[in-house]
């Protein structure tokens, strides 16, 4: 410190520091009380006499707290199972996408083809009023909804450290929720009342299926964002003389790659509807692809192949959970095939599929196989957003509605 530096008395840090120093060196003032008391004959005792004993040791009290702290999830946990279960959740994708899904579910694929009845129904033209309403629904989901939540961070790959202003808007979850529900409502509004009365629609229900494949335990946990169920199981007449895409060999990749092993799981499958419900037979299941939620285990972006794989595993999860509810947990080859329709969408692109579930014995690649008919990448619109302050909907494709309607009415 320079000798010439001025120490301001009112410098706030300095002031407090000095204040502490002064207050810390307090000297007890002789108030003269002792003399007065002594003069009156009242004995005066030294306060230090009372604190000279060591303080008594007290027992520590075990405070329970407002709730029991959860046990750490490790080997000592009572629910811990030594055998790992390879788990696929709806927020994860398979590394090899559709090929790995084929191996896991033992499925052959008829590409770009749906059952003839659906193709027939999809050709039927819908009234203009419906298309107007669909355009309204698309705009309402992308433009006119008032949600203002943080959207994902914008990154520029040339300057990755640059922070762009965070944009508020409609999240992909909300957009898909609005759009798919509106589409389904429109389909129901145009369908006959006998058809709608024999169906039931629920949102966000979970299915879970657990199975063995080549001595490894695998489980799929999936959420149907919309699940349409019906009084009777859905059936399809299928062409069998189709060039199927056979089950591929994944070598050198193993089929459980990117399925994280878990040690806490339930060994029973779960179908959301109880057996007592009469409209419990799954008809169509809708799956959203929310790019903010669905991620690879590694940081690479999700590829188109992986998205298609999601459709197949999702349909398989719901169908097999339902099959196990009917035929019991240990069923292998099903007496009658179970069909389920599946629609996956990220709002713009629609992937339609129909699964014929023949067997739950997924070991190897021989014997009875499941069949997956699919028609992928149908675009509902090119873009819909505020452009220069104006709501915009570009290139609406009226074919997509036909397929959604056909899947509902088949």
């Amino acid at each position, binding site marked *: 410190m320079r000798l010439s530096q001025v120490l301001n008395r*009112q410098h706030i840090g300095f002031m407090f520091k000095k204040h502490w120093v002064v207050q810390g060196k307090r000297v007890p003032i002789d108030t003269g009380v002792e003399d007065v008391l002594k003069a009156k004959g009242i004995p005066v005792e030294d306060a230090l006499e009372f604190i000279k004993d060591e303080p008594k040791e007290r027992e520590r009290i075990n405070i329970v707290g407002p709730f029991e702290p959860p046990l750490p999830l490790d080997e000592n946990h009572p629910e811990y199972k030594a055998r790992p279960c390879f788990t696929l959740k709806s927020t994860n994708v398979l590394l090899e996408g559709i090929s790995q899904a084929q191996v896991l579910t033992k499925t052959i694929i008829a590409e770009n083809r749906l059952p003839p009845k659906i193709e027939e129904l999809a050709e039927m033209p819908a009234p203009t*009023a419906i298309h107007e*309403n669909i355009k*309204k*629904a698309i*705009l*309402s989901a992308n*433009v*006119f*909804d*008032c*949600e*203002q939540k943080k959207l994902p961070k914008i990154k520029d790959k040339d300057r990755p450290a640059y922070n762009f202003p965070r944009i*508020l808007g409609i999240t992909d979850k909300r957009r898909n*929720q*609005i759009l798919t*529900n*509106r589409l389904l*409502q429109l389909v*129901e*509004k*145009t369908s006959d*009342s006998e058809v*709608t*009365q024999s169906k*039931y*629609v*629920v*949102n*966000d*229900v*979970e299915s879970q299926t657990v199975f063995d494949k080549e001595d490894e335990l695998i489980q799929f946990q999936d959420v149907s964002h919309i699940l349409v169920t019906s009084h009777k199981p859905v059936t399809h007449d299928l062409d069998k003389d189709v060039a199927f895409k056979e089950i591929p060999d994944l070598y050198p990749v193993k089929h459980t790659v990117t399925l994280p092993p878990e040690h806490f799981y339930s060994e029973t499958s*779960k179908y*959301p*509807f*109880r057996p*007592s*419900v*009469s*409209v*419990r037979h799954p008809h169509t299941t809708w799956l959203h692809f929310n790019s903010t939620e669905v991620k690879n285990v590694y940081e690479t972006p999700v590829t188109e192949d992986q998205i298609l794989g999601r459709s197949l595993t999702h349909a398989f999860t719901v169908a097999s959970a339902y099959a196990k509810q009917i035929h019991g947990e240990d069923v292998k080859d099903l007496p009658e095939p179970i069909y389920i329709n599946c629609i996956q969408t990220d709002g713009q692109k629609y992937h339609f599929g129909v699964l014929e579930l023949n067997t739950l014995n997924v070991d190897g690649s021989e014997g009875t196989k499941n069949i997956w008919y699919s028609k992928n990448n149908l675009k509902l619109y090119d873009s819909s957003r*505020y452009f*220069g*302050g*104006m*709501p915009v909907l570009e290139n609406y494709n009226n074919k997509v509605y036909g397929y959604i309607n056909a899947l509902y009415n088949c």
Partner: protein
Amino acid sequence: MYLNRVHRTFPKLKKIITRPQSQAALAEQNEYTETPEYPPILDMSLKARKLRERETLYQKIKEINTVEEKQIALNMPRYYGWKCVMFNETRNPYNTMPLVQYYTRSHFIPVDKLPDYYNDTEEAAKLVVQEIKALVEEAIVIENEGIDRDFPVTNESSIESQKTNALAQSIVKQINRIITNNLTDKLDHILSSQVDIEPRHEAFWFVGGVDPPLEVVRWRKQYPWLKDTYDDPIDRPVQYIGTPMLTLRGKLPLKPIIPYSEAENPEFKVPQFTHTPKTVGYFETHRHGTNIPGYWPGDYDEFGLVSYHGRGHIRGESFGDQDNLEALHCQAMKASFGWLLAQANYQGFTTYNDLTYPLVTQTVVTNGQLWSLYAYQLNTIEMHNDKFDSNPKNNVCFGTKPFKLYDTIENGKVQGLNEEVLKMLVKFYLNTPEERDHDMKPYLGKEEQVVADIEDDNRRSWLEARYKHLVANRPKHFLLPEVYLWEKIYKIRFNTRFFEAKRRPFEKNVNPFNRRLDDHLPPYIPKVLRQYPRSKKKFETTYYPKV
């Protein structure tokens, strides 16, 4: 001074620019009239001058063309937002009914059945109920017992209340699905209506006639010329925020329940509640006032039909039957008024420019088993300080007590389904909206009604972005101005630092919150981005409405 300097640089400019002052006045042909024409005599008292100032503001807001600009204009006086009384849909403390009624200007009529207005659809409703009865029973059973599902739980409210609302929502979705599917073929308005799930409802208005808080009285007492106004009532900005479980809206408005002339009926009474809202448990926050009926301006379907609200916030026995009933009524009045006010704002009316026709909505509050139904007619939205005692109109709310839709569920069967309740609900859907034979948007422009209609690209984009930014109520980049505690002790309460330079707002006797929305530097234009060849324009243009 500036002109002088220019003249020095360009001496010839002086000859080109003619001075307006020196122009010869045009000789009026008839400068003299037969009888003298005096300018109007104006009351020049302080109160009257201030009133005229405010009235010009109201007039200016009325003359703005687009919805969004009107909303920005409402917020123009406050950079940091208004100090709003927060009217949350689910916050219903004890004894709030008088306050809610006064703030929404609602006359409440308790009824056992829906008003006569719904009698036309009695027969049709009966038929529909017979058709859908079995489906509704099935849906109730499935939602209660037939499905395994885990509701996602957050920390925002009690788990019990969230579960109640989630179950109620799934039942409401099913019943709405059943009724709309049944009625689509019969009624056009159901086919084209839009269903919103958990939309964002917000509304903002001013309530006058409220006692001034102590600080205001103390402030007034500093000035001798405010002597007569010490206890004059003040305006309170009020912000409603709610999230219905499900709403239906369509292109046309519902018919009025009672004729519009009845709005001034003196029999409709609203209690006067002038105490500060803190006394019953409504608190204040700084925020920009927002009016949002669940969609942005420009959407096709602008008028509400039905909205469903949860009642998970209703406390059990600790609150008492009467208190719970009042809480339901309060919730319904707030929700109905809030939604209708936001819709009215999209038609170009604001809290300063009153409605010219009534609007109607129907509100249902339910937990799946108990259903209370309300029909609300909005007649007036003008209740700010200049109009609170001179505006004779009142809003009207008809409300029932909660009815049980069914008694119990036993062995997978619904016991005692109350068809009357279902019929009332169906009547809400059968209530057909109609086109009105008057101008729906008298205070909006003919060509420009929303910002998207504006021709000028820059202005349109700027206004759109500004409006969305305003209503998002994002936290500011800089913290709000505040008086630190140490300042309060060492500077305000005890003047211990008298020798310091006085730089803080409270030392300079400045209220930092007294700042207009446009009181900021517009974004800077870097030199490289300026217009070619030479542009001295350093800052971007702003397009705030001129009020």
